[in-house]
């Protein structure tokens, strides 16, 4: 095993670092109200963005650029994984399929999982959860298919196009905001057109948050399944 001296040295150093971090954290007491900008958000989220779920409003509307960056990061990850594991001819090497319970269960469950995923990201501005968990749930649906069937493959060429289109959609929404409202990623549906101002708390409210979350949901779903697909294929040596 790795020699005792190295492990003990490691433990001592992480303890010292831990002590230092703890001292830093002592200055930020747990549970106290440390909010400054947070209060502004909580007070104004309803009338400024129409979303009931303050986190979603912050994620999509107030700090929209972060989420745009976030979507790009996932896009880079899926492109990077595809670029690195790219081979001329690739095939799935799974030899044994799922047990009958899994195969039958998957055939029955997959549509519902996808539906539930769609539900999550469509209702992002009302109930907890948004584009990311929704997309991830859809990806788990595809994962189930991969687990159950040895020959199943997602149509990755089509998925890449969907990813591209979804990404472009998001930026286009932002650019429309720039064209109409004068600011990039400006929520013109809520601020300019005043749609759904009256029925806060129901589906058709929250400005462009549902639109963006749908786009993110589809994008995250396709990207994560793309990553899973790339991971599961190996090169075919003639």
């Amino acid at each position, binding site marked *: *095993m*790795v*020699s005792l001296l*190295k492990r003990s040295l490691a433990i001592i150093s992480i303890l010292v670092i831990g002590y230092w971090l703890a001292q830093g954290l002592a200055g930020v007491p747990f549970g106290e109200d440390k909010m400054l900008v947070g209060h502004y958000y909580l007070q104004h989220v309803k009338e400024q963005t129409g979303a009931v*779920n303050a*986190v*979603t409003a912050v994620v999509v509307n107030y700090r929209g650029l972060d989420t745009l960056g976030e979507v790009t990061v996932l896009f880079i990850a899926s492109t990077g994984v595809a670029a690195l594991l790219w081979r001329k001819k690739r095939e799935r090497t799974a030899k044994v399929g799922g047990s009958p319970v899994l195969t039958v269960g998957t055939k029955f469950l997959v549509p519902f999982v996808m539906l539930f995923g769609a539900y*999550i990201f469509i209702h992002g501005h009302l109930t*907890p*959860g*948004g584009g*990311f*968990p929704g997309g*991830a*749930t859809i*990806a*788990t649906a595809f*994962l189930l298919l991969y687990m159950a069937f040895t020959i199943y493959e997602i149509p990755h060429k089509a998925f890449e196009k969907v990813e591209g289109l979804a990404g472009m959609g998001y930026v286009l929404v932002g650019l429309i905001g720039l064209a109409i409202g004068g600011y990039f990623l400006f929520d013109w549906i809520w601020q300019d057109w005043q749609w759904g101002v009256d029925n806060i708390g129901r589906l058709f409210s929250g400005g462009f948050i549902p639109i963006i979350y749908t786009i993110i949901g589809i994008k995250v779903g396709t990207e*994560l399944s793309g*990553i*899973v697909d790339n*991971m*599961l294929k*190996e090169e075919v040596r003639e």
Partner: protein
Amino acid sequence: MNVIGLIEYIIVALMVISAILAVEWRDLLAAAVGMAAVSLFASILFFMLQAPDVAMTEAAIGAALSGAIVIFAVKRTQRFETEEEEKPGWWVRW
């Protein structure tokens, strides 16, 4: 020490233990499961910290997908951490 406080301590302790096990286990598959467990406990903690969005995301992405990806990576590389004795001059190799 009310019940909620006790549950917090238990879950944090479980999380830290599963983290230590995830790092110490020689079988990489078990380590991947350990990592997923850490992520799961973290998701529960998020729930207790009044952050449902994050809890769902952590559960969906952290536990399910990153666990799955690591398992696929283990599938394509090697299952067990190879064991070899400590060569001299362990601190620096050139």
